[in-house]
């Protein structure tokens, strides 16, 4: 898209979208590190994930201030307006993803010795497609691609399926050995958090689509399975 006549306006929009990208990169690392910390029982790494969350929050509130100022001073129209509104929504989705990743890392720190490697791996297996969803939706945002956003939106079912199978698998471990229940409860929450992160990625995909196309990805179109 061509430049604004007022070049400072273009610069402000670029700064906003690069902040969103930066935030996206940070939460991406948080999920990856949180699942690594879990699978390798690396408590130091888990601590780092927790420590990163306030930085994400700080970018979000800064982005919000930028958005208020843009609306007040530039009276955005057309694609600019949609970009700014999407940035506002996407930044809060990313902030939530950061929170959920932090929560996984916190729970990792609380796990006791009754957890076995299979349990850790089950969560890890689910974290991988979730990370991929986030990566894909951030790529869609960076590329301004409605098609990529739609693809992310359509593949949320995979994550829901993963969640259902992890849930069932986890129950079998708990049935095998009731001493695992405390840790297992934490891990069920981790799985739930990952499933929620998948939903947030879907929301981001909707906002990217809106930003690019100007229409809404209707909730009705997507085949959605009942979840637990």
């Amino acid at each position, binding site marked *: *898209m*061509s*430049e*604004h*006549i*007022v070049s400072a*306006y273009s610069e402000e929009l670029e700064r906003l979208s690069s902040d969103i990208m930066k935030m996206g990169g940070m939460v991406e690392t948080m999920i990856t590190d949180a699942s690594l910390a879990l699978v390798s029982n690396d408590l130091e790494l888990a601590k780092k994930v927790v420590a990163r969350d306030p930085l994400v929050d700080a970018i979000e509130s800064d982005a919000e201030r930028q958005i208020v100022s843009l609306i007040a001073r530039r*009276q*955005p*129209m*057309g*694609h*600019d*307006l*949609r970009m700014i509104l999407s940035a506002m929504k996407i930044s809060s989705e990313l902030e939530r993803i950061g929170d959920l990743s932090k929560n996984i890392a916190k729970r990792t720190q609380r796990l006791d010795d009754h957890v076995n490697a299979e349990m850790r791996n089950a969560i890890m297996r689910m974290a991988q497609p979730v990370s991929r969803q986030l990566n894909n939706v951030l790529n869609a945002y960076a590329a301004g691609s409605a098609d990529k956003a739609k693809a992310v939106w359509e593949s949320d079912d995979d994550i829901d399926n993963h969640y259902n199978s992890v849930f069932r698998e986890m129950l079998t471990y708990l049935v095998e050995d009731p001493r695992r229940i405390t840790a297992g409860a934490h891990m069920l929450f981790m799985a739930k958090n990952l499933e929620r992160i998948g939903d947030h990625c879907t929301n981001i995909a909707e906002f990217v689509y809106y930003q690019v196309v*100007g*229409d809404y990805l209707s909730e009705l179109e997507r085949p959605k399975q009942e979840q637990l």
Partner: protein
Amino acid sequence: MDTNQGTPAMMDDTLPLSRTADGGPRIDCRNIEVFYGEARAIHEVSMSFPDRAVTALIGPSGCGKSTFLRCLNRMNDTIENCRVEGQILMDGENINDPDVDPVLLRSRVGMVFQKPNPFPKSIFDNIAYGPRIHGLANGREDLDAIVEKSLRRAGLWEEVKDRLAAPGTSLSGGQQQRLCIARAIAVQPEVILMDEPCSALDPIATARIEELIDELRNRYCIVIVTHSMQQAARVSQRTAFFHLGNLIELGDTNQIFTNPREKRTEDYITGRFG
């Protein structure tokens, strides 16, 4: 803000509406072309203007939006070597027909200009002038009623009712503009054309006019040319974007400003190099 409303009965007796109360097109333009000498200022523009709605014409300077607006009440007739082609149907009648009296036409299609232009007469006479020459008033009482009603409808009555004999030019800019709107209303028009009616006004006076436009839309077909896209977004239901004499895009105002279909529209409304 109820000061500009008369009693409902008084408002109803002179509703200028009638023919297209269904909100159908009040004016229908087909293949309009305007030439200044050899130069073509408007290229085959076809669009219609619905009753009881505000249509905004936007576009950069020289895009033809004012020229096009002036076709609607034959104001271009007054410009030498200006030629209008195509059909402009108002309630099915071609307004450019030789047997249409342009003076009568202009009483049906009122106009408000960029700079308030009250007559050098009293406030009362500014309003009364049109009804008098068109024979719309039966005696003084009737004329008084028309003046009051028009001023009320233009949201000016409360401010001027005690000094109707004062010259129209003694009012503030915003009041003068509302006086001009009252003057247009006084001859019971069906359509009101506005050519940048707020560009000489401060934000408060502008807001008053915009509030007024919103009220007038309940009974008139309004067409407004404005350089302020925010104003177009605020007051209109439909927006037409003109560029280099062409109608580029016409649509629901909401759609034009949030999701224009044409790149040229997008570039213009977002302030980009086109």
